[in-house]
């Protein structure tokens, strides 16, 4: 019994720390790219507006990135602290992929972040832009490797089993890295990060438009965000559908749980819109669905047979209710986002994108929707592969560290208290920054009231030319208005 408690606590701890962590990359992957686009547009057009928006979002990025880093370091050790058996046995296969993530992504992000945040007046515009690109590229490469690891745990390929029970790499690393679910998961997750960021940016733009619809900075960010919603959300729905078909092929019981299909349907399965999953009785109570639609979506044929959980032994079924509901939350939010994107397109066509109050209000309400959808999506896929940690090869129950329940309970409590306090404060500071209207001659990330990091080195920085008005402006030596006049 004690071991069971320890297992549940270890699972709760991992779910808590990884969910909290993923909120920040979901935002910073998209925001890093958005910052690169803004800086690129500034360099191309020379318009101050883009630089202002860059600096506005850079301050928010700095906080989000710091939270992502410190919560991410926790993750890189959680495998060993709480899942040591898994680490020992799977380490030869997934360890190298994670090492590549450190070598090709984490160092890239961290190495160029300092220049991106504080270095514009020291390295010049073009090198600074290069640094921003490197940070954005780093966030993407990081997603590449860690999603390869995660996908391998869902659809393991390219491995051998060693005499000591370890998973060992086979002939080709490509078979491990590009395992069957990886391309779908990568596209779906990275698009999700872009959409999450777009809705945050759109929500902030909408908030400031509601206060002052003439604010040119708010108009620009709102318009850019709504283009993303209009164009990328439909692409994401298609990518999600493809990912679902891939899951049906490789992890059918996850799809059965997502659909609430306890029984098999030999001639066309219904798409349930509502129902209360009842694992004990193995049926969906109060079910309401559209006949045959599930077969149409999953098999592109109204009468295609679909197997249900009745074909799966009880001890290999995931908990249906969690998967069923988290999937509906994700999909529901996805279609709500699609609605916002189409509405914005209509507003643009009728030339009232900046004047349609209800659109702004809805965009404001939808600002956090990406985070909810992303977490719901992860819950769907991770709970849906239970009871396995490596699908069909290693059970979660067999993966845990030899720790006693009180030790894990104590650390879980510490994580909960610290995360809510520390990251709660960080989110508060981000909201505080978002509350300030974006304005002309926006300040960058300055070290408090004391100005940016400067040195009194013997050699002047290469671009500290006092005759260059723009650069002097960037270096923060000119007095700038605190608020928009």
């Amino acid at each position, binding site marked *: 019994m004690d071991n069971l408690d320890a297992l549940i606590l270890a699972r709760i701890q991992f779910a808590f720390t990884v969910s909290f962590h993923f909120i920040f990359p979901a935002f910073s992957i998209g925001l890093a790219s958005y910052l690169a686009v803004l800086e690129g547009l500034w360099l191309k057009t020379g318009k101050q507006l883009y630089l202002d928006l860059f600096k506005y979002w850079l301050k928010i990025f*700095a906080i989000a990135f710091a939270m992502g880093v410190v919560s991410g370091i926790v993750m890189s050790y959680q495998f060993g602290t709480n899942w*040591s058996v898994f680490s020992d046995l799977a380490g030869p296969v997934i360890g190298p992929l*994670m090492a590549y993530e450190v070598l090709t992504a984490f*160092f890239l992000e961290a190495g160029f972040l300092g*220049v991106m945040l*504080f*270095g514009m007046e020291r390295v010049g515009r073009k090198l600074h832009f290069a640094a921003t690109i490197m940070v954005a590229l780093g966030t993407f490469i990081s997603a590449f490797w860690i999603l390869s690891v995660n996908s391998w745990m869902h659809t393991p390929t390219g491995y051998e089993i060693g005499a000591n029970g370890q998973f*060992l790499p086979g002939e080709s*690393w490509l078979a491990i890295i590009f395992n069957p679910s990886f391309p779908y998961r990568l596209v779906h997750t990275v698009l999700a990060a872009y959409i999450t960021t777009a809705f945050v940016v759109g929500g902030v733009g909408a908030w400031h438009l509601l206060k002052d619809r003439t604010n040119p900075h708010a108009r620009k960010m709102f318009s850019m965000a709504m283009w993303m919603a209009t164009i990328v959300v439909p692409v994401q729905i298609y990518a999600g559908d493809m990912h679902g078909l891939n899951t049906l092929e490789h992890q059918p019981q996850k799809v059965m749980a997502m659909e609430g299909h306890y029984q098999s349907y030999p001639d066309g399965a219904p798409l349930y819109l509502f129902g209360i999953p009842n694992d004990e009785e193995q049926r969906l109570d109060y079910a309401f669905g559209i006949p045959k639609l599930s077969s149409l979506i999953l098999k592109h044929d109204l009468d295609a047979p679909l197997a249900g959980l009745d074909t799966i032994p009880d001890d290999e079924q995931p908990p249906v209710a969690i998967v069923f509901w988290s999937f509906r939350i994700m999909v529901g939010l996805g279609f709500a986002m699609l609605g916002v994107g189409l509405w914005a397109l209509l507003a643009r066509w009728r030339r009232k994108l900046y004047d349609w109050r209800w659109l702004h209000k809805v965009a404001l309400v939808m600002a956090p929707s990406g985070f909810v959808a992303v977490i719901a999506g992860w819950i769907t896929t991770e709970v849906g592969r239970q009871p396995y940690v490596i699908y069909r090869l290693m059970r979660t129950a067999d993966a845990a560290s030899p720790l006693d329940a009180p030790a894990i309970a104590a650390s879980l409590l510490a994580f909960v208290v610290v995360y809510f306090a520390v990251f709660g404060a960080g989110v508060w500071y981000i909201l505080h920054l978002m509350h300030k209207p974006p304005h002309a001659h926006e300040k960058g990330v300055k070290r408090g009231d004391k100005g940016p990091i400067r040195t009194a080195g013997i050699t002047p920085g290469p671009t500290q030319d006092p005759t260059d008005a723009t650069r002097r402006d960037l270096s923060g030596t000119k007095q700038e208005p605190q608020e928009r006049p």
Partner: protein
Amino acid sequence: MSIDLTVVWAFIIAFAVFAYVVMDGFDLGIGILFPTFAVGPERDRAMNSIAPVWDGNETWLVLGGGGLFAAFPLAYAVILPATYPLIIAMLLGLVFRGVAFEYRWRDPGHRRYWDAAFTGGSLVAAMAQGMTLGALLQGVEVVGRSYAGSWFDWLTPYTLLTGLGTVAGYALLGATWLVWKLDGGSQHHARQLGKKAAWATLVLMGGVSLYNVFLNADYAARWLTAPEIYWAAPVPILTAIIAVALIRALSVERHSKPFWLSIALFFFGMAGLGVTMWPYVVPPDLTIWDAAAPKRSQVFMLVGVAITMPLIIAYTAWAYWVFRGKVGHEGYH
């Protein structure tokens, strides 16, 4: 001649740990010394001297952990459960330390709390890292492929000694870094701190060394019997020479010399630990060959290291070069 990749990987992990210890060591050291700096410009300048580089420095910890996971998965799977409370404390300490860099500027009304978080987090992380090292050196009980000891094996007088030694050593790195990056009264203050930290580090390093040699028969054999003594002996001798040079430099130097000597001190300290532990990764049971990943994993990662490590070192050096020189006063020059 065939090269033993397991040995190569042991040196790569050792390099990552060394890079982490000296680079994040001075960040954490500044955190530990932070309360001794005057509220206002002095603290701001101390913080600003590391704000652009701390994140890159901390990444070496992820490489150390991730590299251990990849190259010696069994060692990773034994050490982390064995030192569970220390690792959790270290991670939470690093959370507080890391966010303080951003938060203290965002919230002047609560700056002293975030300054306290910066110090507290740095102190806890440093102590936990040092105690983890001690827990490893004193030996970890392994049965089969798992940790088999009890909850508090990591808490002994010896691990407290290694913990304090690490705190003092990081304070030394932090103080000498600030001697390099600051000027005027702040530099004088950093130099005074550096002297105290140097003496504390040397005394605690000596204590740990004596403990290793006299209280552990296995380790004593490595240091005190021939032929091992011939290649082990230069380590303490060079350490002593560097210690003298460091103490002298701290009295007069205005630039980087004490910092480089502190790094040299750490280098020989780690070399000494290497002599003590070799060839074990988890004393007294698991050698590096027991815990090593298969050759395919080693080769695949070695390709990555060979390509990326020169680049990483190059752009990290560039980032340091961009922010070279003394940290300015209030940004107006």
